[in-house]
């Protein structure tokens, strides 16, 4: 019996590896073709067309995704991982995950669908790396900042489901004024540095720090109000 389980696991691992290699190989060739095409003045396809390619199970979907959003996803991954090599792997895993989820999914916003996949994958990779003491970079600072929003010790801590906490965060950012919301999202979703945020919105770094600090305080109060934690 144990052999049976091992065998199944091995098969699954082999199949996953095969699919990973297949996807990577396909998009490497595709990237090359795309480069040629762009040099000829080829036009990028629309998001809806890329989604349709996934639905048709066409490998062109991976090629177009990488061509259009490869560098965008790479930036998200690099903000978290601070390693070119790890980030490249993470982005190719993004296309693999997208391939596995479309269909049945049909994302309304393909760019942000990829962004969320990349963020999740990069964060998982970060956790593995930090366990092996290879962590660090912007995310370490970001996590440190977020720890201000939660109590050091909890008397009554509700172990909320991930989705419930997600809804709470979503409701919180919707309450924020537009500028604060944007800055907060750039820092804690996209893991951008204060310098990058300052450049993006053309405001001083000191202002970004102040806005982030105040908004974290608001979040701390909001979470407390929603009974995510109880202060001592």
């Amino acid at each position, binding site marked *: 019996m144990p052999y049976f389980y091992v065998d199944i696991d091995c098969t699954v691992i082999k199949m996953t590896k095969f699919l990973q290699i297949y996807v990577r190989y396909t998009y490497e060739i595709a990237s090359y073709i795309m480069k040629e095409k762009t040099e000829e003045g080829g036009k990028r396809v629309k998001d809806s067309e890329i989604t349709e390619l996934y639905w048709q199970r066409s490998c062109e979907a991976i090629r177009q995704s990488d061509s259009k959003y490869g560098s965008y996803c790479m930036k998200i991954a690099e903000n978290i991982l601070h390693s070119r090599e790890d980030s490249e792997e993470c982005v190719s895993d993004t296309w693999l995950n997208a391939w596995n989820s479309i269909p049945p999914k049909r994302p*309304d*916003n393909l*760019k*942000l669908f990829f*962004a*969320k996949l990349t*963020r*999740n994958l990069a*964060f998982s990779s970060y*956790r593995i790396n930090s366990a092996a003491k290879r962590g660090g970079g912007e*995310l370490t600072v*970001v*996590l*440190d900042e*977020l*720890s*201000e*929003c*939660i109590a050091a010790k*909890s008397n009554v*801590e509700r*172990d*909320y489901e*991930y*989705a419930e*906490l*997600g*809804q*709470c*965060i*979503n409701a919180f*950012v*919707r309450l924020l004024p*537009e*500028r604060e*919301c*944007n*800055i907060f*999202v*750039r820092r*804690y*979703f*996209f893991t951008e540095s204060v310098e990058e945020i300052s450049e*993006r*919105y*053309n*405001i001083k770094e*000191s202002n970004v720090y*102040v806005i982030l600090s*105040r908004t974290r*305080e608001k979040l701390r109060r909001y979470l407390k109000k929603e009974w*995510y*934690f109880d202060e001592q």
Partner: protein
Amino acid sequence: MSSEKLYSAFNEIDDDILERSEKRVKRHVKHRVMLIAAAICFAVLLMGAATVGFSGGLQDWIANRWSFTSGNELSTEQMEIIESLSCKINESKTIDGITVTVDSATVYDRTATVLIRVCGMELPKEYDIDGIKLKINGETRGALYDVIKTENNELIIVIKADFEDTEDELIKAELSMTDFIFSRYGVTVTKRDVIAKGTWLFEFDLKRDEFQKISIPDTEIDIANENGETERILLTNIHLTSIGVEFECEIDKNIDIPQKVYLIMTDGSKIEYSNGSGSGESAENINTKQCKMYFEFAAPIEIEDAAAIQIGSSTIQII
């Protein structure tokens, strides 16, 4: 709960919020150059007529807001509209070396924006401001909208106020600033520091223009109720002007009007409202409420180029 769990939960933020944060704000210096260039071009086109005024104040601020929300520079036509709706007030008062100047104001259909400059005061590193009141036609309506500290330690304060629907061309405004109090936010306590004592009082008139309105026939749209089910509601008195969209509707007490309103232009670009207000009233024992909604754009738009209004998931074509 760990910070890692909290960080992961940020993945649930809605796409529209994430998308909005992608827009970059272009450098102000470049913007000024472009605005001045556009103003000069316009002056040259008019050949001898009065040049388009460029105050570098409120118009510049509106241009910056526009750039922040749309990612684009203002067009010459938009600048022209802002110019026609703006007036220079330039009234100053000095108390104990602190000079407050009401620089300029822009009046829209039912909102006014006033830019104030304060100089002669040392500002703490972190601050928020208290003690400012703007009365419109005798009623306190103003709200602090933006505070900018300039490099030469000048404080730019922008106040926005809404007012009741009026036919009057002249609107009486009264601005008072009492004791500059700065609230400094700490992790657990808020410190309130009195920086300067005194009352800076200003009275001025604001001129309100009539706006060209496009009336859109009553239209049914889909909105989601609290259970996520789609319901159809009828929008009436839909009007589009160069500065915003308004409509009325009668809906169930438990339903909220979608807070996302966009204007779709003929070139396919989308303009999101930047400031919205609405009121809903319902009588006792009646399960519906009468809502009057008004959404304003970050800067005036060219009404002729508007193709459709998107409210939630429904699109209303502008004929």
